[in-house]
């Protein structure tokens, strides 16, 4: 029976095609039927006319029969659907201007939404690339007033061994690496992981084997490493014989034992390691930093696989019980510490809030843009439907159902929506590729696996269909709600107000929203301009910088000092070099350390609430290389060494903060703690930017490297010529001194400044492009509504002109009406922008978020665009010929 039914549907489906032939056959069959019947009737003695009439009556009419037959033949619903779509297509191709605008604005909206959603998808929805990811949780350390994601190794071991809720608990830690193989030295990142890491995750090797618990028993015993698939492909040319080969990491030999599978990027969503090492090798990877036995060193991320049937709540209770034991056993370290669980991949959950906030904000902005595009199209479609008022009224009068006509109007909007959805998807694909190709200039293993997967596709389909309904349904309902009689007589019906409140409301909303976005963009652009003119406290032009880490290569301080001294000598001897110096704090980088300051002769404060200052260690000549002005005193010299009295150079902010109105030269202070040496101020330099371009002047202290050794170095080299050309030469000098020394970075100082400006640049371009989009949409919207209202009021305007109204009166009437909602929108937009842009303060480099120039500029831009959009239809209204308008009656 079911098979029969299926057969019927299939046959009926084919009934949709070759309709002409089938129609002819049906006509022939009915004709032959009638002829046979007529012949019989004639034989029965009827007149020819009567014979024919009776045959027709008996049949029940030719057309009704055909209609019945057709209903059985094809699939009526689908047939009307196809008809409506064809009709919609014809209407769209007939007004290419409208179609283009509609397609573009919707496609932009859908594309932006898809791209942003793929970000949300990667950050929040897509699971980690491991076996049964739903069972995996991240552990977070929490005290009453602090949440931090890392644990010490001894605490980890106790949590691991004492719990009965996890199938396995693993730990890992990021490790900066200098990697040497085949004569190449590079800086990259790896993880040191516990021996159960790959086993608990269920990650199987692509080649060789993974790190096993046996590799992680006795410290230093198993110098082995696993490569990421990408590392194997890109650094080692996918050599099939890679397993068993030796490479040098941080100055030690390690044997490659395996390659991780493709697509496994570690256990954090945005930071991908290239190599994995057993945790027992941590002292070899982090040279001179052995923490395996130290309960106080909390530096490990922990993830666990819940036992089947164990809920997150149960696991948390069990872990809290262990935390209580650990608190009792080691109160000095574990006092008040509890364990929280969160989804894995977000640095123990601490990043989750920020990511949620950022992506949430972006989603809201793009959703608004899409909503604007929809409301606009709804307006335009309504105007178009109004042109067809008479036709619709005729059809309703003839008995067409309202539903039928609504559906027909909807077909057009669904077509538009679907076409825009496809375009939008292409646009998103392009945007995502652009975003993936972009590598921010920071020394972290940033990795963001954006791509369009099934979740993104479902999302795009959903928003496409809902936009189609959203901007199609309202106009369709509105258009079919006509008073048939006046519409047929081509009158504006009395009950239909010229403008309904929601249309003006839309304009207000559009104007306000685009104003907010444009103000945001404008502020960012102005701030960027301002940042160019910012007093950095140094000159970023004509300078190059290279960074390296002596500790990672196993240098002690004696060898390190020798390296620093010889490198400076060699670099200063390079052609075109004017000066060179070394610092341990790369300029304008993310530095968070501030050390407590104790001024000699002032009441000593407890270290916890002592005033703090940023501390840096430099070589002589550093300020010269940076072009930082020495305000008072002297620079460090070669004579300031470990045998001479400790000295320091401070900046003006330091002097103002600690010795207001006094001469700081010769004053003495300690930094750090009571055990640190008393330093004498020998020089004062101008204030500058140290950790970011946004900061206000902050106290800053420099000590000579010769008195306070540091192994993490940045060399600044100032030249007369192009600093870019200098980079390979400096690199060469470093290689001459140590062939295995990798450079963490090598760039011009100007390039470094690109990084702190990056968030502002991104925000500026996002705001500005969304704002322009919103402005274009608002202009289209105003134009659409004005044209519509002018076309509806042709008659009225005709009467006015006939009664003596001048063109200027008409212009004033129409413009006044059109600009009122715009003005309301501007006012509303300015007040919301004032409220909202306060949130951007951190991006503005000290500029006020209420910058009057930006506000007036944006408002003027918006008003003139709106005026233009309203003027075109208004001008058309002045040209109305009263005779013609009145004859329209």
């Amino acid at each position: 029976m079911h098979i029969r039914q299926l057969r019927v549907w299939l046959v009926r489906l084919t009934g949709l095609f070759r309709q002409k032939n089938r129609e002819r056959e049906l006509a022939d069959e009915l004709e032959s039927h009638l002829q046979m019947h007529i012949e019989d009737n004639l034989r029965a003695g009827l007149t020819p006319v009567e014979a024919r009439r009776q045959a027709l009556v008996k049949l029940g009419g030719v057309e009704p029969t055909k209609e019945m037959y057709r209903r059985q033949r094809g699939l009526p619903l689908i047939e009307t659907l196809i008809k409506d779509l064809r009709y919609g297509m014809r209407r769209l191709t007939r007004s290419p201007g409208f179609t283009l605008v509609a397609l573009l604005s919707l496609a932009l909206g859908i594309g932006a939404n898809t791209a942003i959603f793929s970000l949300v998808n990667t950050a929040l929805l897509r699971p980690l690339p491991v076996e049964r990811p739903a069972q995996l949780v991240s552990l977070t350390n929490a005290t009453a007033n602090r949440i931090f994601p890392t644990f010490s190794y001894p605490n980890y071991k106790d949590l691991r061994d004492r719990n009965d809720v996890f199938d396995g608990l693993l730990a890992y830690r990021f490790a900066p690496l200098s990697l040497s193989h085949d004569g190449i030295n590079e800086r990259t990142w790896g993880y040191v992981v516990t021996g159960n890491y790959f086993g608990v995750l269920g990650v199987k090797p692509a080649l060789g084997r993974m790190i096993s618990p046996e590799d992680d028993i006795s410290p230093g015993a198993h110098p082995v490493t696993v490569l990421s698939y990408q590392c194997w492909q890109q650094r080692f040319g996918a050599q099939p014989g890679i397993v068993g080969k030796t490479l040098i990491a941080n100055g030690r030999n390690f044997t490659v034992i395996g390659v991780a599978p493709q697509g496994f990027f570690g256990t954090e969503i945005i930071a991908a390691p290239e190599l994995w090492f057993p945790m027992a090798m941590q002292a070899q990877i982090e040279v001179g930093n052995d923490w395996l036995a130290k309960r106080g060193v909390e530096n490990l991320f922990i993830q666990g696989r819940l036992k089947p049937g164990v809920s997150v709540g149960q696991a948390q209770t069990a872990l809290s019980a262990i935390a209580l034991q650990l608190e009792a056993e080691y109160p000095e370290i574990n006092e008040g510490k509890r364990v929280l669980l969160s989804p894995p991949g977000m640095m123990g959950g601490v990043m989750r809030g920020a990511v949620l906030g950022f992506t949430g904000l972006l989603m809201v902005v793009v959703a608004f843009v899409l909503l604007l595009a929809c409301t606009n199209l709804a307006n335009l479609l309504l105007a178009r439907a109004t042109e067809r008022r008479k036709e619709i009224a005729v059809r309703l009068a003839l008995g067409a159902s309202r539903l039928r006509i609504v559906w027909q109007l909807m077909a057009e909007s669904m077509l538009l929506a679907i076409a825009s959805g496809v375009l939008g998807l292409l646009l998103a694909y392009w945007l995502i590729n652009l975003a993936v190709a972009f590598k921010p200039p920071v020394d972290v293993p940033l990795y963001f696996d954006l791509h369009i997967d099934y979740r993104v596709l479902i999302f795009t389909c959903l928003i496409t269909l809902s936009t189609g309904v959203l901007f199609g349904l309202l106009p369709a309902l509105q258009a079919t709600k006509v008073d048939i009689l006046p519409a047929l007589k081509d009158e504006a019906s009395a009950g239909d107000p010229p403008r309904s409140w929601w249309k003006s409301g839309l304009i207000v909303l559009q104007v306000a929203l685009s104003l907010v976005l444009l103000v945001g963009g404008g502020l960012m652009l102005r701030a960027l301009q301002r940042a160019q003119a910012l007093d950095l406290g140094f000159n970023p032009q004509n300078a190059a910088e290279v960074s390296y880490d002596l500790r990672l290569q196993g240098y002690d301080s004696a060898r390190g000092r020798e390296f620093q001294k010889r490198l400076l000598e060699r670099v200063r001897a390079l052609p075109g070099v004017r000066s060179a110096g070394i610092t341990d704090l790369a300029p304008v980088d993310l530095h968070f350390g501030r050390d407590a300051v104790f001024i000699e002769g002032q009441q000593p404060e407890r270290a916890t609430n002592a005033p703090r200052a940023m501390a840096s260690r430099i070589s002589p000549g550093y300020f010269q290389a940076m072009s930082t002005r020495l305000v008072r005193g002297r620079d460090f010299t070669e004579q300031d060494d470990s045998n001479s009295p400790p000295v320091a150079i401070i900046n003006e902010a330091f002097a103002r903060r600690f010795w207001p109105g006094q001469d700081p030269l010769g004053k003495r202070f300690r930094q750090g703690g009571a055990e640190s040496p008393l330093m004498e101020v020998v020089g004062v330099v101008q204030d500058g930017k140290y950790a970011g371009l946004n900061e206000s002047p902050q106290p800053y202290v420099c000590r000579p490297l010769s008195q306070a050794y540091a192994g993490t170095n940045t060399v600044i080299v100032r030249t007369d010529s192009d600093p870019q050309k200098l980079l390979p030469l400096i690199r060469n000098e470093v290689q001459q001194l140590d062939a295995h020394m990798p450079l963490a970075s090598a760039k011009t100082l100007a390039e470094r400044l690109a990084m702190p400006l990056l968030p502002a640049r991104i925000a500026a371009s996002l705001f500005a492009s969304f704002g322009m989009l919103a402005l274009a949409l608002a202009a289209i919207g105003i134009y659409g509504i004005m044209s519509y209202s002018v076309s509806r009021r042709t008659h009225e305007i005709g009467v006015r002109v006939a009664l003596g109204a001048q063109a200027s009166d008409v212009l004033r009437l129409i413009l006044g009406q059109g600009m009122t909602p715009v003005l309301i929108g501007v006012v509303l937009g300015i007040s919301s922008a004032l409220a909202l842009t306060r949130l951007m303060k951190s991006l503005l480099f000290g500029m006020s978020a209420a910058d009057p120039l930006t506000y007036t500029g944006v408002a003027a831009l918006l008003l003139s665009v709106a005026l233009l959009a309203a003027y075109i239809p208004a001008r058309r209204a002045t040209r109305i010929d009263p005779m013609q308008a009145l004859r329209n009656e």
Partner: protein
Amino acid sequence: MSDKTDIWQGTLALMVLKTLEAMGPLHGYGIARRVEQTSGDQLSINYGTIYPALLKLEQEGYISSEWGLSDNNRQAKFYKLTRAGRKQLARETRQWEQTTAILARFFAPAKES
């Protein structure tokens, strides 16, 4: 479609099948006449309703059609039973007999129990 027309369509289909079994290949007009005659002119149908019924039976594969010449040398579309149609007819006949037998018992004068 209301239940009534459903029942009517089902009955008409059965009549058409029975007619084709009795008469052999026949055109739509002939089938309609024959159905009317067989009912002793008790049943007055619009002949037009026969065509969707024929189309449905053909879609279900119970009958097939081809163009041919009528007794009066006129082009007409002839319908004939297929094997599936014969089986269906037998099945439907059995069901119909069962149904009428049951109904007959309901409407028969009540007997002493």
